[in-house]
């Protein structure tokens, strides 16, 4: 069963790579504007023919996101005065800040229980809108970076507003609609109900909330956002009713990140470059899924040994391999939705989601973010490997000089710095004491939280109370910096690449489409992560699991 599940998923992704990839390529490189799009451009006052330099592109991203955060913040603070609030209070300041940042940065870290905090209007007009546009921002930035590789002698990287509009309207919306229908057929809930009170078998009364769940669910996965309607996220039967909806959800969260390398290959005019990048992602992803399933199935520890399987925190309708695959998939992409509780995983099984995120969300990562992340790693790999073949390193004909390596190095510095400083700060200020556990496991809970926030994943190990002012503020900062510093650096890199005249390929050029290079990028990714985080991991999951 598990084998069929994984193989069918891989086959579906291979098909998506080709067709969805080609479709997205046409969307981002087309020149026509639909009537709806022209309306949008007129509304916001943008000339769709005008292109932007990297600085302008970056400022557009930042301005758009800043407005989004303010809007979302205001929305939550004023919730109780708005319709469909279901009687919920205004969200408190630090909580609203955290959630606003969380959804705008495509992180979807949730300190709250969705069904008992947010009304339907906030869910639909606030959070769901950000699920769309934050995903579009990621893809747009990735496309801008690819344009840097593909273009020559220009400082124009495209138009952010055009990219944003097209990606949202032509890619995310149609797929979400189809996926919503599929999920509704599968049994996911889609209504505007305020909830029903039922008497359970035990005699107690339970309030069961309904709502626009299926639509939220579709974009939550497709846009690798991960913010669930319900607190227990995709473990909730209203969100993810059956094993086959589970399959659809995993497919949704992997399809765009795995297809974007195709767009890359098409845009730079060499499909094999796209295959190489998707190969790196796949190697890392498959290794990670295999290890997670392996660690979980080996179920070390007293209790799992006794009961025969590490079933604590997992839904019986999914089982161990299915849950482990979801856990790996959700952390390999920067989705962060969960269908089981990572905190309850075996020590090493629980380490894998952390490691997946520490890889920098590149295998395949969040929509857009995964592609630009792995391209930056490829640039660093090319730099070291290129020197070893005796030439100034070049990737796709573009020289990796001081300026390029500066942007790439800084990019690579950001998230480890946020994770390590954040975790150390939590430990030093005793804020880790809100964790449920003590010792290595308690430490893992803190490490997980900052790793998830800084890498814009948003999944939670859980087992830690984070709705305090300190946690909301600190994680909000980690999410904000972890999203936008890399974006600015990536656009800077794109700008300096686009200016160059490419060097023609020759026998002396390092080939970047061969298995050797694929292996090197994967190796560099793993080694750099291992070198950066090994001390921290040693004190958490390794101390616990070895």
């Amino acid at each position, binding site marked *: 069963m598990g084998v069929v599940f994984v193989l069918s998923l891989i086959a579906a992704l291979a098909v998506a790579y080709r067709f969805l990839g080609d479709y997205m390529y046409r969307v981002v490189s087309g020149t026509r504007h639909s009537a709806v799009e022209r309306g949008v451009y007129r509304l916001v006052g943008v000339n769709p023919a005008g292109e932007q330099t990297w600085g302008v592109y970056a400022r557009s991203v930042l301005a758009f996101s800043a407005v989004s955060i303010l809007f979302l913040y205001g929305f939550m603070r004023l919730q109780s005065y708005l319709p469909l609030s279901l009687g919920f209070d205004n969200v408190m300041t630090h909580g609203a800040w955290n959630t606003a940042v969380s959804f705008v940065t495509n992180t979807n870290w949730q300190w709250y229980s969705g069904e008992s905090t947010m009304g339907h209007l906030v869910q639909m007009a606030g959070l769901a809108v950000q699920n769309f546009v934050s995903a579009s921002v990621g893809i747009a930035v990735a496309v801008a970076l690819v344009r840097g590789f593909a273009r020559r002698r220009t400082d124009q990287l495209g138009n952010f507003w055009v990219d944003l509009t097209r990606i949202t309207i032509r890619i995310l919306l149609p797929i979400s609609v189809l996926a919503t229908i599929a999920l509704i057929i599968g049994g996911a809930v889609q209504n505007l109900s305020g909830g029903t009170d039922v008497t359970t078998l035990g005699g107690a009364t339970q309030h069961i909330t309904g709502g626009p769940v299926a639509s939220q669910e579709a974009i939550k996965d497709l846009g690798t956002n991960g913010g669930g309607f319900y607190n227990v996220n995709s473990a909730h039967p209203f969100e993810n009713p059956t094993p086959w909806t589970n399959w659809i959800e995993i497919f949704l969260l992997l399809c765009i990140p795995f297809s974007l390398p195709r767009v890359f290959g098409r845009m730079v005019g060499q499909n094999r470059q796209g295959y190489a990048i998707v190969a790196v992602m796949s190697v890392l992803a498959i290794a990670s899924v295999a290890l997670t399933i392996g660690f979980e199935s080996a179920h070390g520890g007293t209790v799992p040994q006794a009961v025969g399987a590490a079933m604590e925190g997992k839904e019986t309708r999914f089982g161990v391999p299915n849950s482990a695959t979801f856990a790996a998939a959700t952390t390999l992409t920067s989705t962060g939705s969960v269908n089981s509780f990572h905190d309850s995983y075996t020590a090493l099984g629980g380490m894998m989601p952390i490691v997946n995120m520490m890889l920098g969300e590149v295998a395949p990562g969040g929509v857009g973010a995964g592609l630009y992340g792995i391209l930056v790693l490829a640039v660093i790999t090319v730099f070291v490997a290129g020197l070893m073949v005796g030439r100034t390193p070049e990737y796709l004909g573009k020289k990796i000089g*001081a300026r390029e390596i500066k942007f790439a190095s800084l990019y690579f510095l950001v998230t*480890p710095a946020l994770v390590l400083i954040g975790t150390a700060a939590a430990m030093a200020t005793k804020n880790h004491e809100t964790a449920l556990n003590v010792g290595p496991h308690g430490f893992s809970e803190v490490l997980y939280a900052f790793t998830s926030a800084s890498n814009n994943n948003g999944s939670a190990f859980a087992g830690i109370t984070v709705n305090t002012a300190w946690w909301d503020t600190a994680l909000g900062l980690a999410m904000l910096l972890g999203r936008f510093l890399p974006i600015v650096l990536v656009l800077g890199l794109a700008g300096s690449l686009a200016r160059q005249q490419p060097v023609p390929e020759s*026998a002396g050029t390092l080939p970047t489409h061969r298995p050797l290079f694929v292996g090197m990028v994967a190796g560099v990714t793993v080694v750099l992560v291992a070198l950066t985080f090994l001390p921290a991991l040693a*004190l958490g999951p390794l101390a616990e699991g070895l």
Partner: protein
Amino acid sequence: MTVTTVTPEAPVAAQRGKPVGGGLLDPKQLWKSLPDAVRKLDPRTLWRNPVMLIVEIGAVFTTVLAITDPSVFGWLITVWLWLTVVFANLAEAVAEGRGKAQAATLRKAKQETVARRLTGWGTDAEREERVDAVDLRQGDIVVVEAGQIIPGDGDVVEGIASVDESAITGESAPVIRESGGDRSAVTGGTKVLSDRIVVKITQKPGESFIDRMIALVEGANRQKTPNEIALNILLAALTIIFLLSVVTLQPMAIFAKGFQAAAPDTQAINADGVTGIVLASLLVCLIPTTIGALLSAIGIAGMDRLVQRNVLALSGRAVEAAGDVNTLLLDKTGTITLGNRQASEFLPVDGVTPEQVADAAQLSSLADETPEGRSIVVLAKTGYGLRARDEGVMPHAHFVPFTAQTRMSGVDIDDRQIRKGAAAAVMKWVRDNGGHPTDEVGPIVDGISATGGTPLVVAECVTGPSGTTARTLGVIHLKDVVKAGMRERFDEMRRMGIRTVMITGDNPLTAKAIADEAGVDDFLAEAKPEDKMALIKKEQEGGRLVAMTGDGTNDAPALAQADVGVAMNTGTSAAKEAGNMVDLDSDPTKLIEIVEIGKQLLITRGALTTFSIANDIAKYFAIIPAMFAAVYPSLDRLNVMRLDSPTSAILSAVIFNALVIIALIPLALRGVRYRPSSASKLLTRNLWIYGLGGVVVPFVGIKLIDLLIQFIPGIS
């Protein structure tokens, strides 16, 4: 007049298959450079190398800790951290030391000389005065005679002389310098051996060629090259990351120790967290010290390898660019072919025997002192057994020299006139003398031209009793001789991804034939200096880097435009000024070696960076269990090397980290082995050696060191 004294085939043949290498490292040099290395501990010097500066700060920190809280472990770590910095400085000092030795030799050449300055040169009021050489200004005119030292760089404006340039080139055979043409440049400090020349000084005071050479080999104003800067940025970023991992480790460690409060305190960890000594050790082991220590030595040694081959790179940037070159422009004559054409066969026409042609050809060439003429005489002897007849033996012979008008040369013996020369000219001569050139000549001449050769037609005109009869005798086939081993060289270039373009003044037909024979990728025929320039610009527009050699004044613009322009030392000052390298041997084939040295420089940097980063894996396996196994005993499973104790493990890692620098100094100076091959092959090879080696070697090294030091009291 060619000045290169090496035999034409020798350099190519001798260097073939020999990998680019450098001199061996003399252990005495290490010792001699030690004072310099200690002097470089000054932080003001060290700040240029951020990685090593961090190590020094760590060493100062542990020194303070070792003084306030003395222990054998603390002091040993402190000593080895200091040694790490000293070893790094040593690498740089040794690299610089080699340059200094060369500079000292050059300084000897720069002795005090008195110049004989001419005022009013070329006028009636010409007057000579004696001034110190250092007082000469640009544009001054000086006279130098046999036995005197040339007082400054300049161009010969009058006369011709043989000059001993061994002071700068190391080549003892004298060279000829003459006014006009492309052999006019003279260098200050060299000695005139014969005759008298008048030189116009072109240097500014204190900026002579020798001054620049001294500065270059000493590395006095060495600038970081683009790739070096980029690599430094990456290393700085890695250093910051490791600094972060080490600093942020402390609160995590305190938490862990607090949780396992019952665990015993060790020299690595106590209730205050990881001890300062161990934190500093961890940091130094993790940051890329190996490459950080050797980076500048690699750069200096790269320049030095060029100097050893008598090439002066005027900037490190040019050396790096050499590794990146996509297109190599090579002059045909002297680089691809031997300097001159040689007779390869005599082709008779119209019932004439080959011997008769050979005889006539030889007679007409006896007085011809050009290499072509001599080669005809040689062929007549080796091919037809005709001994060279001395001019004196034939008293009646009257030799007719070649002129641009007649385009023929020959000999008149009594009533027989023999002429040889360009086909059209000789045929006209035959017709003018009443003869009828046979139709056979045309196809033969075309055939030779088509294969890239030069046809010379031989004809005679005999005045006998029955009047004059003029007839063509045959055709001499003159051929360009491609140097031995060039084809293999160009094949290598192709494998390295470098396109070779032959530049020649020949017509396209001739050029193509030679290009095919030599195996170059492309050729530029009937090339004028402007064409060369246009070709370079076209290549550069396509993003390619171009290298070329040149010596003439009309090469100067192209030399300046090329990314790597190698000027021949025999060339004009203008050419030397325009290029970014000067080849003291004036050997155009050296361009190929320069490319290899450039590549080797980059490969060495890349390989040692990979090695340095890969080393960290083993160090983690030594240090992490050493730090935390006392708190979380399960972490002892990471101690795969089974090191003796936490203190011995950490000390072993630190010692290994220091010793590996010393061990790699010879490699940094010599450069990693380089054989021309494709990028894929190079990468695979270097990745196995330096990537896998970098992972495995430290496991072995640390274990061995641990086996030794566990016997030190206070460590085990």
